[in-house]
């Protein structure tokens, strides 16, 4: 049962990733990318990494893809200029894949005991936090400086574009 769910999720991720290669419209590709990221989050959860799964949903599917879609709306890309945006045709595929993901989560949460999920080892968020702020503290500081640099760069570039 656990294996079936795992491989089904992996298949969803790979199918959604493959759809990006062939799709024309960037918004459709972004939808498939969101589905792939959500499937990966479920894979992380199934592998026994709940913290990374939650971060994947919040950061990737939540924040980063919003940036993508925001830029697409600002750029207002169309396959051919003048043609109306044919958005309502492409929602079935991502919707079907998302429905499959939702059903898998429903199955997983419906089981009685959590260790029945079959995952041999769950590394708790506590262990990750202890590692993060123990031996990796210097890297956390470096990541903070990197984010600050990205913030400064984004501000500089956006101001320069306006001037």
């Amino acid at each position: 049962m656990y294996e079936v769910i795992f491989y089904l999720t992996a298949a969803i991720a790979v199918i959604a990733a493959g759809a990006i290669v062939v799709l024309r419209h960037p918004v459709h590709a972004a939808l498939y990318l969101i589905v792939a990221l959500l499937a990966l989050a479920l894979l992380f959860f199934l592998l026994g990494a709940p913290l990374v799964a939650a971060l994947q949903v919040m950061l990737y599917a939540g924040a980063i893809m919003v940036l993508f879609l925001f830029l697409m709306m600002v750029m207002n890309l169309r396959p051919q200029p003048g043609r109306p945006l044919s958005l309502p045709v492409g929602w079935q595929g991502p919707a079907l894949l998302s429905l499959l993901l939702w059903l898998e989560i429903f199955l997983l949460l419906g089981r009685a005991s959590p260790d029945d999920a079959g995952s041999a080892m769950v590394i708790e968020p506590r262990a990750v936090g202890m590692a993060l702020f123990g031996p990796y503290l210097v890297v956390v500081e470096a990541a903070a400086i990197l984010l600050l640099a990205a913030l400064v760069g984004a501000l500089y570039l956006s101001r320069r574009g306006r001037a």
Partner: protein
Amino acid sequence: MIPLTHSLVIAALLFTLGLAVVLLRRELLFVLMGLELMFNGVALTAVAAGQHWGNADGQVLTIFLMAVTAAELVVALILVWLAFQHFGAVRVDELSRLREDAKLKGNARGDTS
């Protein structure tokens, strides 16, 4: 229990598909999406390996990977937007001008407007 090899094969598939997106689709936004896919393949590798050896380091690496990706993507998206605004470029092939050329074009546009 899923063997480590299967997770690695899935991660390699995702990475290859991301590479295919970068190489085959020349739109700037698609290139960034392909980069995202490749980052996620790597993240799956890290998490699967970390779980296999019962170590939290894989998840720590994935968290740092997310931070780096976010920082990269913010700057890259602004660069894509600037390329679109200044040159009207959506595809990578349209960004083949050297710097002097670009400056000349920017000056010409500034004069006419």
